[in-house]
């Protein structure tokens, strides 16, 4: 574990100088969406995916890191686990910030400063009212999605090479679109799956917290599985 944390820190130190502008940008996006329509704030976090992954990928490619990985007293598997750990921690930080902003904006009832006009504003009002959709579950769900995307992208990148990043992104986007349209078709046309507007999250805070924790655990497990698969494949290769 110590080695994994050291490698996660190695990646953090690598990206740190470029992280400040990235983080400020992310914060602005999150804050902006938070004020407008809370449950969708987590969508702002998606900006972090291409930013953080492409940042590390470009460092990997620009600097001949195969050599430093060969020199450092760390096992190859832990180098891979360290990278996944770093990506997971950075996603968790984004999640925490989003939740904190949500808590703050709801507590301060920031929606009262919004001009009451237009569809988006109505939507925002609805979301602040907690009637149908918990903003926190939405944030955690997008966080989980972000973890999946991060893990898949990193895994593809390490196994197939960074040169195929563009292809990997295309595969990912197509997969998401197919899943989305597949769901809409099955839910609204065939009525096999529940329609989104009919889903009502339990109003009880404790149940919502449990759902959030479960989503977090599932995301962590997904990242851990991908980390393990990637490490097993990559560690057999030469540097």
């Amino acid at each position, binding site marked *: 574990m110590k080695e994994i944390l050291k490698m996660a820190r*190695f990646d953090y130190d690598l990206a740190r*100088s470029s992280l400040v502008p990235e983080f400020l940008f992310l914060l602005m996006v999150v804050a902006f969406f938070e004020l407008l329509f809370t449950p969708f704030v987590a969508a702002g976090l998606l900006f972090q995916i291409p930013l953080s992954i492409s940042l590390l990928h470009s460092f990997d490619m620009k600097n*001949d890191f*195969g050599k430093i990985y*060969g*020199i450092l*007293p*760390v*096992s190859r598997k832990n180098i891979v686990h360290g990278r996944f750990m770093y990506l997971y921690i950075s996603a968790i930080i984004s999640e925490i910030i989003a939740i904190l902003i949500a808590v703050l904006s709801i507590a301060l009832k920031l929606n009262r400063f919004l001009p009451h006009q237009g569809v988006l504003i109505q939507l925002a009002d609805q979301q602040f009212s907690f009637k149908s959709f918990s903003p926190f579950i939405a944030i955690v769900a997008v966080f989980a999605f972000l973890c999946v995307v991060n893990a898949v992208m990193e895994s593809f990148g390490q196994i197939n090479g960074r040169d195929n990043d563009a292809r990997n992104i295309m595969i990912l986007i197509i997969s998401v679109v197919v899943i989305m349209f597949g769901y809409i078709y099955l839910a609204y046309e065939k009525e096999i799956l529940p329609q989104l507007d009919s889903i009502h999250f339990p109003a009880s805070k404790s149940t919502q917290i449990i759902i959030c924790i479960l989503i977090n655990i599932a995301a962590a497990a997904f990242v851990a599985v991908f980390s393990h698969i990637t490490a097993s494949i990559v560690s057999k290769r*030469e540097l």
Partner: protein
Amino acid sequence: MENILEINNLCKKYEEFALKDVSFALPKGYIMGFVGENGSGKTTTIRSILNMAHKDSGKISVFGLDSEKDSIVIKERLGVVFDSLYLAEHLNPKQIERQLKPFYKDWDSKEFARLIKDFGLPEKKKVGEYSKGMKMKFMIAIALSHKPELMILDEPTSGLDPVARDELLDILTEYIQDENHGVLFSTHITADVERIADFVTILHNGKVWFTGDKDELAEKYQVIKGSEDDIPSGLMEKMIGYHNYRNGFEALIKTEDTIGLTDEFVCEKASIDEILVYIAKEDKNERNSENGKV
């Protein structure tokens, strides 16, 4: 003598290249020059020592430990420098120190600061903006800061100007002074080996052509010159890299084979550079004779 590095029958096969039964040993307290033309297998051997390349067979011991099983312990005690910068180019020395320090329990920040100062490296500049010589010195500063017992350098002097090369060799000579360290450095600049190495290993086509004391190599081989007409029977087969010129011939020969030769032949001490050239010529001669047979 205790060996700090020992390689026995190392074999590694790639599609178009193979290391064949590479064996050599570096005793503690000495510098070994690892020479050979480009593509002779120097880097593959170094990558095998570092477990970056997975060997097919053979045994590599560093500090008496197995290079595969004890790889992490070995790397703690090893300083490695490659021919090109492998560190984050957008960071300055202090940021890189912060990045690497946690990996080494013997990391000495004071020593790192001293080396940066001694080497005249600008502290606030990004290392990617350093000159080639500065990058090399920086990598050495990084390698020396965790007090390694063995330094492995892959082509450290290639691309450096004579002044930077000289400084680098001085650093290595100073490092070896306490006789508890070892240095293995690969190069195709044989003048560097002549200057600081105690031992030499010559690699050719993936095989060890010579390994041992540098002085022994100098005594073992000579360059022979003379007229082709004067070559006695049986001598031609003993010559390495025979080459016929308009005014005579030149070749490499074992000193023991020069005993009894007449004064018509001139025998001179062979430099490592000349030895490498004659080995390559011998290869060419063999290829030509094979083609001739076809």
